[in-house]
């Protein structure tokens, strides 16, 4: 979600610290994996939002900045078509991007995603379909 390794590292650390602090409040109704994933998801959104506020940049420019950063990121090892795919993903709105990553890369079930993102299965299906269509068009056009 945050693309750059340093940012991802920051999000991972904050997520694990928050999980550790919140562990006494963890209810065993949810899976530990789902609970951790939810914290990480929220932290990613917060991180991107703070980044935007800190540098007074519009949300579209954050994605543009990330799109440029991925090319120079030494920890990204994808070829040209993979880079194009990443750039296509970065054109999506943040939540749609999260939905796409969860389904496409993590191969999660809609029910699990619904639990993590607190969204209905129907809304997630629609969001994923829309995201896939946008990415398909982007890759074909560029």
């Amino acid at each position, binding site marked *: 979600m945050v693309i750059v390794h340093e940012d991802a590292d920051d999000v991972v650390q904050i997520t694990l610290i928050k999980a550790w602090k919140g562990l006494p409040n963890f209810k065993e109704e949810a899976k530990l994996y789902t609970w951790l994933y939810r914290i990480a998801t929220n932290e990613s959104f917060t991180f991107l939002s703070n980044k935007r506020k800190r540098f007074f940049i519009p949300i579209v420019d954050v994605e543009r900045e990330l799109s440029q950063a991925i090319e120079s990121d030494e920890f990204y090892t994808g070829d040209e078509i993979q880079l194009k795919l990443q750039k296509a993903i970065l054109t999506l709105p943040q939540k749609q991007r999260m939905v796409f990553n969860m*389904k496409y890369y993590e*191969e999660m*079930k809609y029910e699990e995603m619904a639990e993590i993102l607190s969204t209905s299965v129907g809304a997630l299906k629609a969001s994923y379909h829309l995201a*896939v269509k946008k990415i398909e068009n982007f890759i074909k056009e560029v």
Partner: protein
Amino acid sequence: MENKNNIEEELESIAPFLSKIKKENNFSTPLNYFEILPEVIVNRSLNSKLFNFSFNKFSKHFLIPASSLAVILLMIFYFNRNTTEAELTNEQITNLIINDEYIKIDDYLVYDAYSEVLDEEKKTTSTTDEYINYLIENDIDINSIIDEL
């Protein structure tokens, strides 16, 4: 496995071009990243505890100074609003002076001030009259004066 097949079938039906792209995660981490991560997190957690300045928003230590500050700010705002200077038109000033008796002027003072102007006028008039009378009495022709000039 069933879920994976479903995802791929779904993807192929919506986006045939995208479904042909090899699905791979190309984001890597530095060497030994996960080995040192627990230590990094413990250090960060300790540092944040050292510098973590937290306070309860509803405690009296916060509420009393905050409410006092709010009252002071409100008073400053209120007084500033009431003392805002307004520019009056000439008509408004006249109305204030005449109708509202905003400024009471003593008649004697008006007469006194105006009498000086009248005296000045009188002086000027009397001086001119004196010159004319002098010319008449001495039978002096005005043309001779002009010629001399």
